[in-house]
């Protein structure tokens, strides 16, 4: 009887017990109403887990408290409820095994299309080595990145592993200086990432093709890429640049371990560009002045700046002609050709192939000159319009003058009485 009364109270108190989670009103609107299973005993005491009981993938699949924690869900009072194979709160190492009991089973995961190698991957990761081999309690377990109870799909915007939430999730530990001090790793990665090209694309432009932390480090097998792996990691997305880099002299140097892959010229978390005017300076970090390599660097810098200026001039020419009212379809087509060559320059400079660079630069330049000439011809034609003023005013003034003379003559002759 008392148990029934309790359940009624729980039922009427509404779903808003879990205020701590997020903006409650928002969640209530977003979620289907909480359906209380009055036969489920755990909720009699663990009222704060009711939201998790109803939300997320586990709830949808019928995975309830008992599946992970054991005990007797039919009981509503204490000694009885925590009887049976009661697990309680597993420690960090046990958590890995607990999650793995289902998630490492290919037969269980197949129906959901989920990978089953996550625990195996975790064991190879820095996190896994620290936790499982060295029993370092600072290392994260499954529930430090994923919520323990409310398991949301990765494409749910509230999930901790939703792409735009990943930097924050990693930053929870990796931005903590005290926590990171024993491992001697920096804590500014998230800050740098946020203002990098990757971070701007992901966070500001919501471009999910851009990498999160996981894009380069992996998720369950999280490790910083080794020096020799670097070029492979970057060229997963930067395919053409990677290909050019691999066949060039720097690619060989990277394979020999003499060059830190892409990091030889670029940086990692803030992914700094080498500006066109900084190419030669960047080369001089390794190559002494006057050497063949440094001279090549200066030549590349010259080509790239030249091509950028030519491309700009081409764009200005097209815009100018458009302003003058002419249709610019063919000009735009040629501009795209120039732009393609210009983009190829960005790739080819990673090969350090001066001949091809020069050829591409020449192509941009030639198209740019053509477009410039078209724009100038248009401007000239518009200027020639003004020449019409000469015959117009010559005829007007002479006709007015003749009329005036004729009028005066007629009036003198007495046509006007």
């Amino acid at each position, binding site marked *: 009887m008392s148990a029934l009364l309790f359940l009624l109270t729980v039922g009427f108190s509404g779903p808003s017990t879990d205020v701590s989670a997020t903006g409650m009103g928002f969640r209530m609107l977003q979620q289907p109403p909480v359906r209380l299973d009055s036969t489920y005993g755990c909720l009699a005491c663990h009222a704060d887990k009711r939201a998790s009981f109803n939300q997320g993938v586990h709830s949808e699949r019928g995975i309830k408290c008992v599946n992970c924690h054991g005990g007797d869900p039919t009981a509503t009072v204490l000694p009885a409820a925590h009887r049976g194979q009661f697990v309680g709160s597993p420690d960090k190492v046990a958590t890995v095994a607990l999650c793995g009991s289902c998630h490492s089973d290919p037969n269980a995961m197949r129906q959901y299309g989920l990978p089953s190698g996550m625990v195996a991957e975790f064991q190879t990761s820095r996190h896994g080595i620290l936790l499982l081999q060295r029993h370092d309690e600072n290392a994260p377990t499954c529930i430090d990145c994923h919520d323990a109870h409310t398991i949301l799909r990765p494409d749910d915007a509230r999930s901790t592993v939703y792409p735009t939430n990943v930097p924050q999730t990693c930053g929870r530990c990796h931005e903590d200086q005290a926590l990171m001090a024993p491992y001697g790793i920096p804590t500014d990665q998230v800050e740098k990432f946020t203002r990098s090209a990757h971070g701007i694309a992901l966070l500001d432009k919501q471009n999910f093709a851009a990498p999160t932390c996981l894009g380069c480090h992996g998720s369950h097998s999280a490790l910083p890429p080794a020096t020799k792996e670097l070029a492979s990691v970057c060229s997963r*997305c*930067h*395919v*053409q*640049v990677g290909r050019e880099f691999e066949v060039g002299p720097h690619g060989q140097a990277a394979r020999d371990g003499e060059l830190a892959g892409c990091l030889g010229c670029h940086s990692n978390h803030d992914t700094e*560009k*080498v*500006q*066109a*005017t900084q190419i030669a300076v960047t080369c001089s970090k390794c190559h002494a002045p006057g050497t063949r390599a440094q001279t090549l660097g200066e030549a590349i810098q010259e080509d*790239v*700046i030249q091509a*950028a*200026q030519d*491309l*700009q001039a081409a*764009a*200005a020419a*097209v*815009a100018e002609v*458009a*302003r*003058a*009212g*002419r*249709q*610019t379809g063919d*000009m*735009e087509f040629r*501009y795209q050709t120039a*732009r393609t060559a*210009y*983009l190829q*320059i*960005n*790739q080819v400079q990673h090969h350090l192939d001066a001949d091809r660079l020069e050829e591409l630069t020449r192509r941009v330049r030639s198209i740019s000159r053509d477009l410039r000439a078209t724009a100038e011809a248009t401007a000239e034609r518009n200027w020639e*319009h*003004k020449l*019409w*003023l000469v015959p*117009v*005013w010559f005829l*007007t003034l002479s*006709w*007015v003058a003749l*009329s*005036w003379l*004729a*009028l005066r003559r*007629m*009036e003198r002759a007495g*046509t*006007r*009485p």
Partner: protein
Amino acid sequence: MSQPWTNMKSWLTQFAADLRASTDAGLLGLARYFGLLYGPIDASLPIDQALRKSLRYRLAPHVGWRHALGGIAYLLFLLMVVTGVLLVVYYRPSAQEAFPSIQHIVSGVTLGWLIRDVHVWSASLLVIVVLAHMARVFFAAAYRPPRETNWLIGVLLLVVVLAFGITGYLLAWDQSAYWTVTGALNAFEEIPLIGGLTVGLLRGDPIVSGATLSRFFAGHVVILPWFAMALLGFHFRLLRRHGVAPPSDHDTMTTSQGRLFFPNHLLRSFMVGILALAIVITLAILFPRPLGVQAQPGQVPVTILSTWVVVDVSRALVYYTGGWGFALFSLLGLLLAALPLFDRGTERDLRRRPAATAIGLAFFFGFFGLWVAGRGLRTAVLERPSIEVSIPDPTIQPPSPVDSVINDGGRP
């Protein structure tokens, strides 16, 4: 060497002699000489008589250069008809094709640029000249009976001119035209009772769209010309019946003392007309209307260019005096138009009719002042763009300055 010249001279002499030998006035003789008039028709219809009568017609002695304004307005109207017909040959009134067809007119059609800009400039000058014509009539108190009907027809003609301008404004179908018309229709919609209904009919869609363009095009080239021609016919008919109002100091008209219509008055008209034409062409060549960017209903531009005098004036009014200033100035215009209904006195000296003079001065000089002010605002930045966007480049996104673009192409 002198053989062809002698031939031509003898031919010309013969021609002049034939012309002089014909009993009729020069023009008729010329028509008959070239076979344009055929003897029996000429004899049975009083064409001969009618033409001779109109050529021998004498104007009132007080008709001077200041009376040319109405004629110039008519000349500009005819110029708009001619250039408009030429434009409509190439213009395509659909949301997709309107702007490209104007690009084609400006860049691909022989003298298309000139025809279009003459049309645009005539539209502005027509409003100015019509108002100047009105001002002359107003200050001379020529709207008094028996000419009050003609004043009211003139006011209706002004309305038609404004309607031509408004409907023509959208046809350019660039960002400036599109958003000016959008703004104007939105403002008009605020008028109680009639606003919503009228704008609904004019716009034909929840926003300005291809449906609006079709309606405005139909109004501009099919509906309004009929009104214009009918009103013009009536205007001229009444002018011939009542004559040009005499100045205040002598009320009687003595037509026998006036200037001959042919050739004196015709020559004077020719001088004025050709000068007006040269001015229009000069303005069109020196200050062509920019083509702008094709209308984009989803993007409010940061700046809107005004290309018609009435838009300049409205903009200056709204910018400097707000919506109430605009309403009051419009009321002043309406008062001016309706004045002949109330002002039935005989006093014509400006100093002795201060109320009318004040209204006239305020409106006409206000209009010209606001035009000058509005031209300064031509590319005024919109006060509150509802969406924060800039006008995109018409064709492409040009690369940004050297340093920021160099490496942007590494990734697809």
